[in-house]
C-alpha cells in the first residue's frame, strides 16, 4: 500500500468520526458504558483474587520437634525440610522465640508466662510454607516422615474449605468477565451496524467506482479503533480517580488494615491498558463485522 493511501485511510477514519457525529457519539457512549461496567468488575475481580491469594499464603505448616531435641537434631531436621521439593519457605522458631510469640498473643495477660524462660516447656519448631497453597496437605504428610519431627500441625479442614471457596470465586469472576465482554461486543457491534447502515450508500458508490474491499474496509477499521479508544478514555479516568479515592478512604477513614487493597500502581496502568485494548478490539471487530454485509454488491 502506498503511503499516500495509508494517510488517506487515517484521514478518512478521523473525518468520518466528525461527519457521522451523532452516530459516533452513540457508539462511543455504548463503548464507554460497557467498559465502565467491565472495569468495575475487573477491579473487583483483581482485588478479590489478591485477597484470596493473601489468605491462601497464610496457610502454613507448623513442625514441632521433641522438647529435648539438641542443636544437632535441629540442624539435621532443617536440612531435611529444606530438601523437600514442595517446600518454599522454612523458618526456624527457637523455643525462646516461641515463648515470646505466645506471650504476645495473650496480650496483657502474657505476664502469666513470666518465669517460664528458665524451664521452657515449648519445643523448637519450624514454620513451613508450600510452593502452592494446594500442596500443603501432601507436604505435611512428607514432613511427618522426617526423622526427629514430633508433631505436624496445619489447619486441614479449614484449608480444604478455603480452597473450595476460592476456586468457586475464581470461576464465577472469570465467567462474569467473559459474559460482560461478549455483551459489550454485541452491543457495540449493533450500534456500529446502525452507523454503517446509514452509510451503505457510500459503500455502494465506492464499489461502483472500483474500490477494492480492502480499500473500503480500512477507514472503517481506523474509525472503529478510534471509537473504541475514545470510549475507553472516560472509564479509565473514572476508574483511576475512583479507585484512588477508594484506597485513600479505606486506609485513612476506615483504617481497615486487613482489607488489603491492591496498590494504585501498577493496577491502574494494567486496567487502563486492558480497557484500551478491549475498546480498540471491539471497536474494530464491530466495525468490520458490520461493513462485511455491504461489501457483497
Amino acid at each position: 500500500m502506498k503511503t499516500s493511501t495509508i494517510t488517506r485511510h487515517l484521514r478518512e477514519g478521523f473525518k468520518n468520526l466528525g461527519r457521522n457525529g451523532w452516530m459516533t457519539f452513540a457508539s462511543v457512549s455504548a463503548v464507554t458504558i460497557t467498559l465502565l461496567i467491565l472495569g468495575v468488575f475487573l477491579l473487583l475481580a483483581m482485588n478479590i483474587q489478591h485477597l484470596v491469594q493473601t489468605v491462601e499464603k497464610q496457610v502454613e505448616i507448623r513442625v514441632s520437634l521433641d522438647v529435648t531435641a539438641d542443636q544437632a537434631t535441629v540442624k539435621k531436621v532443617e536440612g531435611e525440610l529444606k530438601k523437600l521439593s514442595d517446600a518454599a519457605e522454612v523458618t526456624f522458631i527457637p523455643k525462646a522465640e516461641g515463648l515470646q510469640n505466645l506471650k504476645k498473643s495473650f496480650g496483657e495477660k502474657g505476664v502469666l508466662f513470666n518465669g517460664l524462660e528458665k524451664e521452657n516447656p515449648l519445643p523448637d519448631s519450624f514454620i513451613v510454607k508450600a510452593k502452592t497453597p494446594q500442596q500443603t496437605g501432601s507436604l505435611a504428610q512428607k514432613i511427618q516422615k522426617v526423622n526427629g519431627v514430633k508433631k505436624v500441625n496445619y489447619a486441614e479442614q479449614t484449608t480444604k474449605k478455603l480452597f473450595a471457596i476460592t476456586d468457586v470465586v475464581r470461576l464465577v469472576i472469570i465467567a462474569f468477565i467473559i459474559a460482560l465482554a461478549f455483551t459489550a461486543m454485541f452491543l457495540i457491534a449493533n450500534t456500529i451496524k446502525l452507523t454503517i447502515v446509514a452509510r451503505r450508500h457510500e459503500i455502494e458508490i465506492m464499489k461502483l467506482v472500483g474500490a477494492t474491499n480492502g480499500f473500503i474496509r480500512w477507514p472503517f477499521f481506523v474509525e472503529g479503533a478510534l471509537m473504541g479508544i475514545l470510549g475507553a478514555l472516560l472509564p479509565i479516568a473514572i476508574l483511576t480517580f475512583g479507585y484512588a479515592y477508594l484506597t485513600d478512604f479505606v486506609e485513612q477513614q476506615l483504617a481497615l488494615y486487613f482489607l488489603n487493597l491492591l496498590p494504585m500502581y501498577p493496577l491502574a496502568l494494567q486496567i487502563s491498558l486492558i480497557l484500551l485494548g478491549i475498546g480498540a478490539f471491539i471497536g474494530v471487530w464491530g466495525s468490520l463485522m458490520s461493513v462485511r454485509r455491504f461489501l457483497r454488491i
Partner: protein
Amino acid sequence: MCLIEMQDVWKTYPNGTVALQGIDVHIKGGEFVYVVGPSGAGKSTFIKLMYREEKPTKGEIVINGSHISRLKERYIPHMRRKIGVVFQDFKLLPKLTVYENVAFAMEVIEASKKEIKPRVMEVLELVRLKHKARSLPDQLSGGEQQRVAIARAIVNNPDLIIADEPTGNLDPETSMDIMETLLDINKRGTTVIMATHNKEIVNNVRKRVIAIEAGRIARDEQKGEYGYED
C-alpha cells in the same frame, strides 16, 4: 472490434423471475446505444450485467476481451474502473463537495494527489461545472448534480459509460443538456450505453436503438426510434 459481446445470456432471479432470455448483442467501441422498452422488461438487468452488479444465470459476457461473467470476485473492482456508471438518482455523496465527489473515484483507485487535482478540474470543465467545485450537491440543480455524476463516471478515462435513465428525474430542457454532455463524451471515443424512457431524445437524436421486451431483444436498429407511446 467488439467492446461488448453477449451470447445467449439468461438471467433468472432467485425468486423465480425470468428477467432475460437468450440475449445476443454486439456493441462496437465508440458506439452510442439507447436501450428502450417497457418497465419491467429487463432493461435494468441488461445494464446491471455489464458492470457485474448481477451475474448471468447462463451465457457469456465479454467486455473488452475479458469474460466478466466468469470473473473472480477480487478482479471485479479492477474491471469496474474501466466502466463509468451514471444513475437516475445521481448517487452523489451529500457531505462531500462537487470536487471531492469527483476526486473520490480517483482516490479509490489510489491515484496520487498530483494526478487527481488537474484531472478533476479538467473533467469539471468538460461538464461546465468548474465554478461549482466547492459547492455541496444540495446547492446544485438536478441537471448540475447529474453532470457531477457524469464527471465522476469519466474521470478515470473509462472505455464505456453506462447510464441508467440519466434523465429520468429531469425536466426536458435539462435532459437535453445532459444528453449533449453524453454526446460530447461519445465524440471523444467513449462508448455510451443509455437506458431511457425519454421518447423526445431518442426520436430527435437518432442513434442505435436496442428494444427489450419480456426479456428478449425485440428490435435492434441503427438510427432507430423510440417506438412506444409512454
